[in-house]
């Protein structure tokens, strides 16, 4: 899990114990772990090749051989559902790795240096903050071309400002702290100071924000897939599977319902986990 070992307070045993005591957070953690596990073990769990087309057995109802039935190409729906965890988590990872570092970097620079640097950076942050995220992401992918990386890039490029604002406020508060002056007095300056002494202090709140952002990213990615702007076919992706099922929604409703339900459950698990994390790590919101 990402949070383990990301900071002194996060890694210790009492943290896990407190997480286990909140039933909703524990359920969320289990759900997220399950999705990650399914993604890692997909080839072992999936009963069929997700792209294998059994044309004689198209649009089959759920039955013994195909627990969730087959889609319009005769592909096993359960197997596609299982493999569908992969692009979702991969995109999630890309987005987090892009947006959080970018936002934190902007925030640290603005908060630490102040003055004109701060004014310019925060003005840009405000401008991007006022952008419509989803529509810009759709337009970006529609114009640059569909695909996992482009989708992640589009979402990350519009969602970093929240991290920048938070990091700036916290860095500016740290700036007035004695321990930073102490570090500077013993000669720690520049990059080393920001990396070793400022950044670690910003991580807990950034992690909470990442956790809170996860479900939004999952839903946005699913939206991209639904509009045909996500991973290219025939790769199994939940959003595009819902779109495929739309054509037969009135007769074989489960083809669209099942992947949508998977999106819902995954995003719900991340939300539960994020709420729990916030309650534990950030008592202000208790």
């Amino acid at each position, binding site marked *: 899990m990402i949070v383990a070992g990301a900071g002194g307070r996060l890694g210790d045993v009492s943290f896990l114990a407190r997480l286990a005591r909140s039933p909703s957070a524990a359920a969320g953690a289990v759900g997220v772990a399950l999705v990650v596990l399914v993604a890692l073990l997909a080839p072992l769990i999936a009963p069929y090749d997700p792209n294998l087309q059994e044309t004689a057995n198209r649009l089959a109802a759920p039955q013994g051989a195909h627990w969730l039935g087959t889609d319009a190409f005769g592909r096993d729906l359960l197997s596609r559902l299982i493999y569908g965890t992969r692009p979702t988590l991969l995109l999630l990872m890309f987005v987090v790795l892009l947006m959080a570092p970018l936002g934190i970097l902007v925030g640290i620079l603005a908060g630490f240096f102040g003055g004109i640097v701060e004014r310019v950076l925060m*003005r*840009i942050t*405000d*401008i*991007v903050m*006022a*952008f*419509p*995220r*989803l*529509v*810009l992401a*759709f*337009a*970006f992918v*529609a*114009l*640059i*071309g569909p695909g996992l990386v482009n989708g992640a890039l589009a979402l990350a490029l519009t969602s970093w400002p929240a991290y920048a604002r938070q990091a700036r406020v916290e860095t500016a508060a740290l700036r007035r702290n004695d321990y930073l002056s102490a570090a500077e007095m013993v000669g720690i300056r520049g990059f080393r100071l920001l990396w070793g002494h400022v950044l670690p202090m910003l991580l807990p709140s950034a992690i909470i924000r990442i956790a809170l952002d996860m*479900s939004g990213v999952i*839903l946005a990615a*699913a*939206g991209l897939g*639904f*509009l*045909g*702007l996500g991973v290219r076919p025939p790769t199994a992706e939940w*959003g595009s599977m*819902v779109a495929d099922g*739309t054509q037969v*929604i*009135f007769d074989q*409703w489960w083809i*669209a*319902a099942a992947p*949508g*339900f998977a*999106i*819902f459950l995954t*995003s*719900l698990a991340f*939300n*539960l986990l994020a*709420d729990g994390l916030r309650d534990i790590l950030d008592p202000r*919101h208790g």
Partner: protein
Amino acid sequence: MHFVWVALRWLISLALTLLGLVVVTFAMTRLSPVDPATQMVGSHASASSYQAAREALGLDQPLPIQFLHYLRMAASGDFGQSISTGQPVASDIARTFPATLELATVAIIMGAALGLCLGIFAAMRPGGVFDAVARLISLVGYSVPIFWLGLLMLLLFYARLHWAPGPGRLDVLFQYTVPARTGFVLLDTWLSGKPGAFRDALAHLALPATVLMFYALAGIARLTRALVLTELGQEYALTAYAKGAAVHRVVFVHVLPNIAGQLITICALAYASLLEGAVLTETVFAWPGIGRYLTTAMFAGDMPAILGGTIVIGASFVLLNTLTDLAVGRTARGRA
């Protein structure tokens, strides 16, 4: 004097944000592998007609000149001709935008009413049954893919139960007989005086508006609850309690007037996000608004339409956002 200064600063920030939006969309067109000149003349065109198209589109000019050209185009609302509909993008947008505005407005009225109630009553007894229900609703609202919710509702209420009419804004019966005077179908059917037309429009609106409402409901309920809870811990609320006021009196007489500005902000921001959420909802319900126009354009690779739609939705979003900022700035100062 002070007010002029505030208004000026607001205008500058609005202009900068809109400029940023234009810069970003311009960068997208330059990064796009789609060549607008090829799109215009086709891939089998001769070199000379291709060159003529490039010159007509101004693609042979240096980048800064191209940007200025683009900026003037965006500012005048002239986005060129849509490749898929063959109409000017501006008139396409003028035709589709009212449908989106109508849908989003009905949805935000429902979402705000329900969300504020949920949040306020949940905060009155935190940990109670009502709080748990409100928490569940907002959790589901935050987690559910809106396009999937729309599909399921169509399946249930249209295909299975026959309670709601199918996709679209009006029955075929009324579609061509009701004159489009305002573009808002509720108003048009009301004005037309045709029996049953207004009810038909309302019935068509019910499902998509409910789905879109869900998009706003969760956020409004959660933020309202947090806000009211924080205020209830303030000293003025405790004082009111100490003087013997019941919790509903404290909330409705003391707390709510104090946080009215922030509640309006929450709803206004949700309204802006509905303009975005409309893109997916309209696609599911075949609602002929700007969202569906945009997604159709995306499938067709119709660059002028994509840009026009994005800029118009984006500009409305930015305008709502900065207007809210202005309103909050004023109420916050009014309180201080």
